[in-house]
């Protein structure tokens, strides 16, 4: 369950919807992570590009891992501009017992940061500036740069 939205996420609605979707599913734990845009370096906000085909296949691989442990992952992310103090990312894990959900949310969010095909830009003076210094090269990057 991966949901993409144009612009900022409606956090209270999404968290409520997810809660209600699983309220009768007999999960003992619901652990959400919400990412919010902070004011720093004089940015006006952030902006995102997403490559959806690989994002969906990456997410499905994680959903299979979660299912094998009786858990389910939900994720929402923004496309385009998200301003200060708005939210661009929510991930949540539901599981029968808390330990699985606590471990999964940690592993999932870390791999999301390192692998999900999403590109972040700072919004400064109305322009998008690619946040290269905060970005991570996907595992296996650089093969086209190797000289024969």
């Amino acid at each position, binding site marked *: 369950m991966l949901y993409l939205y144009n612009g900022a996420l409606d956090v209270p609605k999404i968290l409520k919807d997810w809660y209600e979707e699983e309220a009768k599913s007999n999960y003992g734990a619901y652990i959400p992570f919400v990412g919010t845009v902070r004011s720093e370096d004089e940015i006006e906000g952030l902006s995102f590009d997403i490559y959806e085909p690989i994002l969906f296949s990456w997410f499905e691989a994680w959903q299979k891992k979660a299912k094998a442990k009786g858990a389910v992952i939900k994720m929402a992310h923004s496309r385009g501009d998200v301003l200060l103090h708005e939210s661009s*990312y929510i991930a949540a894990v539901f599981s029968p017992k808390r330990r699985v959900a606590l471990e999964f949310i940690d592993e999932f969010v870390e791999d999301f940061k*390192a*692998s999900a095909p999403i590109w*972040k830009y700072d919004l400064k003076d109305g322009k998008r500036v690619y946040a290269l210094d905060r970005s991570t*090269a*996907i595992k296996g990057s650089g*093969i086209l740069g*190797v000289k024969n």
Partner: protein
Amino acid sequence: MVRVEFLGPIQKDALELDIKNLNELATILQGDKEMSEWLENSAVAVNDTLVSSLEAPLKDGDKISLLPPVCGG
């Protein structure tokens, strides 16, 4: 022909190339000075699956994507 797409912040139009494998693509892109930095830090996907080797053969209609460093959230 294969189609090569440059994703995210790489400001480059897609290419249509007559090549048989990714080694040929590497040679072509290494000749483009504006691409040199991106080649060092980008991942490569063929038909939306990430690849770790340049050896796999390409066939007519394949889609190749270059994915520069990511930062979701």
